[in-house]
């Protein structure tokens, strides 16, 4: 494909966008509480993209995509930046950025043919059903049980931190299919219709007051062999693809917003102005520290992407640098906001979202150092897979999982009701 082709593609995309989509000034915040009316409207927007041939741009045409290159997708995203494209809230990223790419890498042609075209057309949004109350950092320790009988499977257990489950159409669910082998070797992924009998969803209220996360209970959910994603008992390799995608090694949906080097931490400068502290040298230093971190993090991400492309190391492991950088810088930046605002961040007029923003950023700051792999897990990845430091003695990787459970005194999870304990 020549650059001229890409330029032509860009020009076509631009005229279609101008003719069909509503322009938006600055990036609008992602929807955080999605109701049915909003969702119907966003599905309509996705159908419109789909009809025009601008959905699933880099996905195979066999499955409803356009079969073009990722460079085409990037070009379209760049052009689309100023326009109102579909907003599926948190499920936008999990569906288009995580679940479908993972399925494309591991799913059977039948499975893909059955599901991907619906995603492209805006009829199917996907949630990850991965973590469990007793399997947080220890993701391979899932206890959701899938039992086979002929070509039927029965799945029982509970999943947690499933962002956006309450408005998802399908879930990509990890379950244990063998208990007599070490934990990484008895896992299988399933595609689960979220309206299947036996699926119950409970929204979890978060520290910030929002309820994007859900706990999902599976109680004897009936599936078939056709719903298996990848190979039975080989789910951990699928999981690794998913984690690498999630942690920043994979493709991104929309292009990034403006480069942080373009302006000096504008949010914090505005905050300093708001409390009349722009000329305070310590405030200026804090703002500059945040800016330095922002710019360096952007450059680090570019470097990691380039290193991944150059093949110097496993991209999934390299992504740990980006994830850990976010996980350390984000809380520090949130604390800087608090330091600048001072007591002004503690109290605001009722309903004033703008004045509440600093406090909310502080409360939310540490989610980056926990969700999707804690800082500690990322440090292990960097230390062991990139720096070649020896692993610690493990007490649970070479032992049948049933034995691990017996030793640690816990009981297998199936059948737990909606009062299950929360988890790391």
């Amino acid at each position, binding site marked *: 494909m020549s650059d001229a082709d890409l330029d032509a593609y860009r020009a076509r995309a631009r005229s279609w966008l101008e003719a069909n989509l509503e322009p938006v000034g600055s990036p609008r915040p992602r929807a955080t509480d999605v109701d049915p009316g909003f969702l119907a409207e966003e599905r309509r927007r996705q159908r419109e993209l789909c009809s025009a041939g601008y959905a699933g741009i880099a996905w195979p045409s066999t499955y409803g995509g356009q079969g073009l290159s990722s460079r085409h997708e990037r070009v379209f995203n760049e052009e689309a930046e100023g326009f109102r494209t579909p907003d599926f809230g948190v499920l936008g990223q999990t569906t288009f950025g995580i679940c479908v790419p993972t399925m494309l890498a591991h799913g059977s042609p039948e499975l893909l043919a059955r599901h991907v075209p619906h995603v492209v057309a805006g009829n199917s949004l996907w949630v990850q059903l991965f973590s469990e109350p007793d399997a947080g950092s*220890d993701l391979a320790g899932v206890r959701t049980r899938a039992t086979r009988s002929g070509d039927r499977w029965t799945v029982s257990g509970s999943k947690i931190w499933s962002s956006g489950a309450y408005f998802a159409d399908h879930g990509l669910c990890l379950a244990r299919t063998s208990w007599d082998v070490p934990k990484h070797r008895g896992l299988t992924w399933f595609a689960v219709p979220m309206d299947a009998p036996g699926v119950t969803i409970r929204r979890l209220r978060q520290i910030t007051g929002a309820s994007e996360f859900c706990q999902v209970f599976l109680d004897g959910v009936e599936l078939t062999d056709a719903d298996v994603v990848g190979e039975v008992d080989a789910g951990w390799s699928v999981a690794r693809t998913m984690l690498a995608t999630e942690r920043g090694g994979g493709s991104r949906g929309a292009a990034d917003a403006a480069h942080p080097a373009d302006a000096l931490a504008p949010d914090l400068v505005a905050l300093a102005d708001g409390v009349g502290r722009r000329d305070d040298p310590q405030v200026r230093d804090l703002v500059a520290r945040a800016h330095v971190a922002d710019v360096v993090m952007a450059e680090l991400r570019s470097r990691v992407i380039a290193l991944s492309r150059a093949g110097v190391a496993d991209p999934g492991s390299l992504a740990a640098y980006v994830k850990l950088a976010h996980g350390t810088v984000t809380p520090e930046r949130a604390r800087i906001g608090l330091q600048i605002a001072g007591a002004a961040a503690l109290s605001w007029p009722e309903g004033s979202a703008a004045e509440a923003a600093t406090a909310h950023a502080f409360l939310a700051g540490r989610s980056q150092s926990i969700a999707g792999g*804690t800082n500690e897990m990322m440090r292990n990845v960097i230390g062991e897979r990139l720096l070649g430091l020896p692993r610690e003695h493990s007490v649970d990787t070479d032992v049948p999982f049933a034995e691990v459970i017996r030793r640690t005194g816990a009981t297998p999870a199936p059948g737990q009701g909606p009062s299950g304990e929360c988890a790391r």
Partner: protein
Amino acid sequence: MTYALPCPPERALLAEAASRFARDHSPVEALRTSDVGAPAPGGYHRAAGELGWFAMLVPAELGGGSVSESPLADVVAIAVERGANLQPGPFTAMNVVAESLGLAGSALQREEVLPALVEGRRTATWAVTDGCGRWAPGAAVSYAVDGDAFVLDGFAVLVEEAATADWVLVQAGSPSGVTIFVVPTATPGLEVAPREGLDVTRRFGAVRFTGVRVGRSAVVGEPGRGGELAVHQLCVAAVLTAADAVGAMTRDFGTTLEYARTRVAFGRPIGSFQAVKHLLADTSLALEACQAILAAAADAYGTPGFTRYVAVAKAYIGDAAITLGQNCLQVLGGIGYTWEHEHHLYMRRMTADAFLFGDPGAQRASLWPAYGLGEVA
């Protein structure tokens, strides 16, 4: 979890009673369902008054009395239990007002206001922070003299229980100096607005003074001469706020430590991993250091070094409180990120305490003049 040093038995009893009272009258569990803090339950302050919560800094001849030789250490012992149990109510303000009236109040104030506060029949709060969060005397409210009257104008935020308190303490500024007022909240021109905030365990409002006229009877001490008392009030409030934080830190750390001991991942308790163990060890060290400097500041009450020790304690404890909240959240992981786990309530409370009555940066800046090294040229 932290160690207890031997202390006078009366103070240990006082703390134990405070802890039991808190659990009985306003348990932490009650806060889990609320977004904006609950009011103190009926009879709360009256019962607290009976336990001596507002009496320690008031001389015995005025109806008060501490249980040990070190009265501020006694109040600190109560404040620690209050923080550990996320208690409501303007405890700090009531102690500060009670102490101030004992030190400088008029006969009338000592008769009408002081006993009501000491006994917990009535409550007081204070309005000292301006909209940008500055705690300097006179920053929020100014006053002018008009004949026999004083006219107050200004706007203050972070006024605890603004809507329910009977009196409000004001450190008002004027070109001729700072005057301390204790003003009935029912005075015309004084308007209260509820506010939302980071700390949902307490209720902070805003108070606007629009031409609020008060008489000489509202003045504590001499008009225009309140500067020294104002600084002392901020010091006492800072110590009690630091104590509240230390109580909250102790409880939050204890919960987290227990979680690290019992939560299993990778086939072993997470607290057996050095990453978790060492983070908790560092946090424990900081907490022991907080206990040490808090005690030192309380013991410095009434000595020339009080101001300096308070600044050191509030600076150190403020930073340590914010860090402790972050560290505990990191160990708790996802569960600590949920609303239903109590951690976030403690994190909100500790963080608010870090800023109330002077954040760490402001406290550190105050050390240079406190050591006679002058303001920045």
